[in-house]
């Protein structure tokens, strides 16, 4: 090629940059356009309801012939076609957000149910797992982004508040299904009957999936060293047993009482709630009205706070308990750094059953809370964990179908037992399964024995205002006011009670 031709083919540098720049801008604009169209794409169409047209059939039934006339009798037969709800064929995937923690089996149980469901229906179930706190935060973010999951499993207060704000689909058709309705524990049904404040209507906006109480666990060998085969059930003697054990083990860096005292841990609030109930103090009436002006309740709150503060100041509770997160008492207990702890769900023994089955069967024990100081037996609070369906996903029927599949007894037993005993079943019949009554097991049957005492619905599931208080870890904050900010007991109790009253006013309860 001659030099002249080469010169002709050369492009001016400025022009070259312009062409490349323009090309890049067009590609970038196309990419942005695609991104925007993806983000703003409307949700998949809602399931269509196909109703066959009513047909009228005229049938000559009988013909009577009289002289000169023919009378034809006819009958109108209406063919009633049952309304058939079909899932739009294009929707073949369920996006699910599920809470799992601590035990690998939890995920396997859910994944197995999803896999079996996929095989049975051809619907892909796409599950994302989060820890309880992260699941709550993720759910909030997804709701705000208007891209909610088709189905979520959440513990505690968040579903109560979502129902209150009118964000959840009514699932009465699942909960009140005659096949299962009477098999639910009554306390579970009560914990699932919620208020939608936008319609002022109470209904079932959540499907109970798991059940738990707040349990006490202890290390058998450490307590035995203090001369106790098991902790006594009387209030003073119960705590004295762990104080004695503490005095023996503290030289090894092991603390006697591992109660969470932090405002960062829900466990703190839950334990405080159970301590109040064990002493017969109900902060809510059964109708969900605030009961903290009852002098007995107020006094019990103050006494319980003083009791915990003195346990902490006397050194029976680890100093770091004021910063514990939900996982930290689990870690301390599993690491044998504390002799006893309280915990919502059986997550600590369940984790131990995987990592050290021998210790699980021989050394870690779940026991009852002590009786009240006056010898009476206070109730336990029962908490349900829910499956919820956010509104507006377009996949509501499919989500309901998957929940029904899980709740089907033949699927539910492997599902709930897959949690290694972390949760109890929501069905009476399933609790009779031998899994929950193995005499060699020191934890799961003990947790089932919590049904032997009176039960109440957890306050934060009975009232949205109380759910908000739980979300704020109100009791934990009250404890922190005394231990960290050095407030007086009275001032701290007054602030917590005032906060409760403000929330009840805000929520119109």
């Amino acid at each position, binding site marked *: 090629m001659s030099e002249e031709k080469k010169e002709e083919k050369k492009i001016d540098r400025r022009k070259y940059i312009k062409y490349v*720049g323009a090309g890049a*801008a067009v590609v*970038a604009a196309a990419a942005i356009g695609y991104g925007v169209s993806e983000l703003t794409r409307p949700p998949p169409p809602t399931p269509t309801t196909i109703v066959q047209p009513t047909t009228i059939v005229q049938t000559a039934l009988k013909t009577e012939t009289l002289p000169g006339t023919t009378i034809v009798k006819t009958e109108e037969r209406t063919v009633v076609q049952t309304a058939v709800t079909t899932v739009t064929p294009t929707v073949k995937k369920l996006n699910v957000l599920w809470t799992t923690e601590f035990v690998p089996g939890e995920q396997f149980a859910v994944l197995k149910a999803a896999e079996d469901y996929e095989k049975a229906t051809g619907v892909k179930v796409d599950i994302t797992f989060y820890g309880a706190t992260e699941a709550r935060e993720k759910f909030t973010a997804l709701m705000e982004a208007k891209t909610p999951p088709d189905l979520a499993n959440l513990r505690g207060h968040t579903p109560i508040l979502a129902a209150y704000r009118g964000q959840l689909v009514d699932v009465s058709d699942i909960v009140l299904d005659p096949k299962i309705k009477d098999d639910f524990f009554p306390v579970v049904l009560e914990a699932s009957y919620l208020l939608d404040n936008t319609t002022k209507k109470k209904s079932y906006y959540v499907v109970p999936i798991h059940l738990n109480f707040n349990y006490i666990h202890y290390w058998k060998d450490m307590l035995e060293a203090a001369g106790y085969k098991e902790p006594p059930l009387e209030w003073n003697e119960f705590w004295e047993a762990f104080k004695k054990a503490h005095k023996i083990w503290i030289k090894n860096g092991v603390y006697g009482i591992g109660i969470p005292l932090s*405002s960062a841990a829900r466990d703190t609030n839950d334990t405080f709630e159970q301590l109040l109930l064990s002493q017969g103090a109900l902060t809510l009436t059964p109708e969900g009205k605030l009961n903290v002006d009852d002098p007995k309740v107020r006094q019990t709150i103050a006494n319980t706070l003083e009791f915990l503060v003195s346990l902490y100041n006397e050194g029976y509770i680890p100093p*770091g308990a004021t*910063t514990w997160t939900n996982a930290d008492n689990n870690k301390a207990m599993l690491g044998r750094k504390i002799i006893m702890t309280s915990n919502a769900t059986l997550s600590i023994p369940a984790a131990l059953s995987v990592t050290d089955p021998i210790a699980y069967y021989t050394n870690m024990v779940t026991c009852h809370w002590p009786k009240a100081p006056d010898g009476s037996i206070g109730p336990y609070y029962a908490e349900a964990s829910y499956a919820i369906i956010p509104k507006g996903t377009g996949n509501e029927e499919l989500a309901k179908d998957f929940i029904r599949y899980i709740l089907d007894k033949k699927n539910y037993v492997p599902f709930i037992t897959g949690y290694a005993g972390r949760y109890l079943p929501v069905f009476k019949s399933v609790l009779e399964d031998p899994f929950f009554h193995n005499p060699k097991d020191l934890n799961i049957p003990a947790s089932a024995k919590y049904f032997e005492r009176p039960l109440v619905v957890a306050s934060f599931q009975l009232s949205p205002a109380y759910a908000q208080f739980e*979300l704020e870890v109100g009791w934990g904050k009250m*404890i922190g006011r005394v231990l*960290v900010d050095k407030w007086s007991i009275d001032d701290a109790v007054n602030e917590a009670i005032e906060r409760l009253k403000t929330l009840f006013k805000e929520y119109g309860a």
Partner: protein
Amino acid sequence: MEKLYTFLFIFPFIFLFILLIIYPLSIEIYYSFTEKKAGLEPIFIGLKNFVYLFFNKDYIRSFFNTMLFVGLGVNIKLIIALLLANFFNSNFKFNRIIRGLFILPWPLPIISSLIIFYWMFDYDWGVVNYILSSLGLPKIGLGRYNEAMFIIILYHIWKNLPFWTITLLAGLQRIPIEIYEAARIDGSDSLKMFRYITLPLIKNLYLVCTILSTIWTLGDFNTVWVLTKGGPADSTHLISTLAFRYGFELGDLGISSAMIVFALPMIIALILILLKFLKI
């Protein structure tokens, strides 16, 4: 044609700037004047959120904590960084090896290093407290406000010191060596040379570093969130962590936005000062 090309070149940037900066900021400012619960439509309530914040003990404390964290964290870090940069700028054996080791905290993943700190300072079972109690010294932990704030600031300094030391070292290396040689001939000692040569010549860079570090530190979320989650008793929250707690834990995006918007003028003022210094 020239104008069209100009527009095509800057269009992607303007689009992304509007999408990722202007739009979220505008939404945040709007939400701060509304009652906005997660997933629900906002309801305009005027200045109510700001009035609420004005009397909210947690927010006032978080504001104070942010000032303390930024004020102490940035200044102590940069003073130490300047001294260390001066040290690394001199000639001594193993300088390069020590410099290399010193940089190590900087590339460490933030969350992992925070979790390591969390466990090291665990009051009951942490290695730091094991050593302190072995020496008969009082323990230190995240369970008390003063100690928790100290550990938070300590982590910030430890993690970011290498970056600022290297930045200032680069500035020191641009000072001509002849100036020092002349000063030495005139009988100046090291202290005088630092006072009368190094400081005046590094002053502008130091100020830019201070402002830049202040802006970055104001937005720090990870340190407090991983170490204390704002505890004990919500006492160590910064504005950023408290806003997250209100927004995504309590689902109150109105209050959460107001917390950030309330602090916005301060950040904008710092940015303007920085731009003035950089003569942009």
